């Protein structure tokens, strides 16, 4: 692969006892870009991140971060990366300030610069007022922000975010997304793992879909959505007997042909708003009554269903 890749995984393999967590995973993130690893729990995303961040050694394959081989020069890799994880790895019995100061000193920034940087980051992440409080009094969203701040103490050019918003409410999630977007705007390369298509969609330049330890699809968000059919208009009819007539009435409206299942018509569409109004008008003209109408965005499950014929949950169950 070319030099432009800041993060590169090449045929990574890892086995834990009977479970083959990675079965030859390859992907690359270009410098300054965001790569999303999308997949359900147990797909192998975290294992891949742990290998790339030198926490774990691979059984096979190779990986380079900032052009440095992670197996050969782990210490040099650690100087280039920041890691924020799904567990919000901060010390509950320290204050927010003390957590950041500690990380700065472990990067050997020196006492004064470590303190300055801590104050700076607390302000940047909206934690200035909470800086002197013990972290055990923080909310979940505040902890994640502190965790992300801790990963940024040494201004690493490459950042690994392992499910940064899992378990957060929507408001905290959006705040965190905004912080990540600000980082990317400054040129940080990011590898992001997530279970949410929406998150990968919003943050990632390219997405690699991971399932059972292999990459099963790779592309931009638009390319992936094209594969799963993009947004859909779902219309539940008042009378199931109208199905054929409804499908006929909606024929040329969407980006594809309407499908009928159980009294619900599903129509692939490209832009939501206008289409909803047009669909309602047409059905009304045809004298067809409806119970409900809604636009559906594709979810991780849709991607999975399309790519593997299983939902994400089924894929994980099967493995157990």
């Amino acid at each position, binding site marked *: 692969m070319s030099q432009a890749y800041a993060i590169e995984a090449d045929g990574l393999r890892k086995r834990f006892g009977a479970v083959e967590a990675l079965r030859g995973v390859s992907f690359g993130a270009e410098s300054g870009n965001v790569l999303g690893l999308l997949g359900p729990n147990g797909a192998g995303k975290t294992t891949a991140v742990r290998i790339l961040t030198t926490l774990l050694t691979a059984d096979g394959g190779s990986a380079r971060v900032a052009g440095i081989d992670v197996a050969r020069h782990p210490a040099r890799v*650690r100087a280039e990366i*920041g890691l924020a*994880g*799904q567990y919000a*790895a901060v010390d509950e019995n*320290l204050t927010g300030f*003390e957590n950041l100061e500690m990380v700065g000193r*472990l990067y*050997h920034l020196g006492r004064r610069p470590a303190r300055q940087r801590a104050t700076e980051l607390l302000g940047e992440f909206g934690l200035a007022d909470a800086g002197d409080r013990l972290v055990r009094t923080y909310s979940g969203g505040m902890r994640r922000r502190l965790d992300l701040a801790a990963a940024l103490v040494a201004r690493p050019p490459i950042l690994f975010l392992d499910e940064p918003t899992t378990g957060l409410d929507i408001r905290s999630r959006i705040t965190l997304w905004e912080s990540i977007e600000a980082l990317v705007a400054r040129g940080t390369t990011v590898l992001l793992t997530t279970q949410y298509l929406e998150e990968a969609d919003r943050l990632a330049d390219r997405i690699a879909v991971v399932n059972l330890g292999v990459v099963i699809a790779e592309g931009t968000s638009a390319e992936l959505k094209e594969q799963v059919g993009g947004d859909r208009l779902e219309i539940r009819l008042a009378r199931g007997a109208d199905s054929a007539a409804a499908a006929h009435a909606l024929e040329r409206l969407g980006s594809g042909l309407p499908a009928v299942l159980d009294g619900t018509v599903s129509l692939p569409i490209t832009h939501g708003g206008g289409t909803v109004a047009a669909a309602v008008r047409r059905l009304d003209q045809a004298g067809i009554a409806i119970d409900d109408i809604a636009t559906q965005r594709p979810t991780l499950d849709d991607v999975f269903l399309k790519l593997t014929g299983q939902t994400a949950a089924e894929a994980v169950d099967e493995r157990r």
Partner: protein
Amino acid sequence: MNAVANELSDMWVLAVRSAKRIPRQPDLLIGFTIQPLMFVLLFVYVFGGAISTPGFSYVDFLIPGIIVQTMAFGGFVTALGLSEDLKKGLMDRFRSLPMSRSAVLTGRTLADVSTNVVQLVVVLGVGVAVGFRFQTGLGDVVAGIALLLLIGYAFSWIFAFVGLAASSPEAANAYGFTILFPLTFVSSAFVPVRSMPGWLQPVALNNPFTVMVNAVRGLFLGIRVGNDVWLAIVWTIGVAFVSAALAIWRYRRVVAK
């Protein structure tokens, strides 16, 4: 040179971090101070009358034993802390930083020395209040205190191993006490070994804990028992080395998951 300085700095930063926890968690602080204090009062006033210690007042006999026991248990916060660091992902954060990898363990055990000092002051203070008196000169007392801190440090490494081997912080706590309680009670810490049944005496006499308690008694009360002090130092260093080796081995295993 720079590498050594960084190593020491990492150890210090993590030791300070560990030590800050104790005053911030009142339940831990109580465990560390009230518990040994209760032991002193219970043994002196409840059991003391029933235990005969020819040649000593029971208070004089007891205090060195209780101090050694307190030092031995003082490291349990290391087990607790390491187990929590593993569970909560902090271990991963430390390991992803360009810092010394051993500092995660050496920082913890170093922090225990500070809690041991606090405990030493509490138990000796209460001991003196209930009638304990040093029978030796300053040199011996200082040597005894140094030995006690060394013993505390060695046992911290046992707890480091326990914390890394246990599945949860609660389990770590339970294991630690299950291992250490018999060790401290089947020894000369609370009763003279001669008062135990014949079959138990050799066990108690050869218990490293007995050796350590006898050495501290020798240094505080002035009754020299052969080479007990040297033997105690050898035992303590041995315990430290073996349990540090076990802790490091266990650390390498748990982080590879």
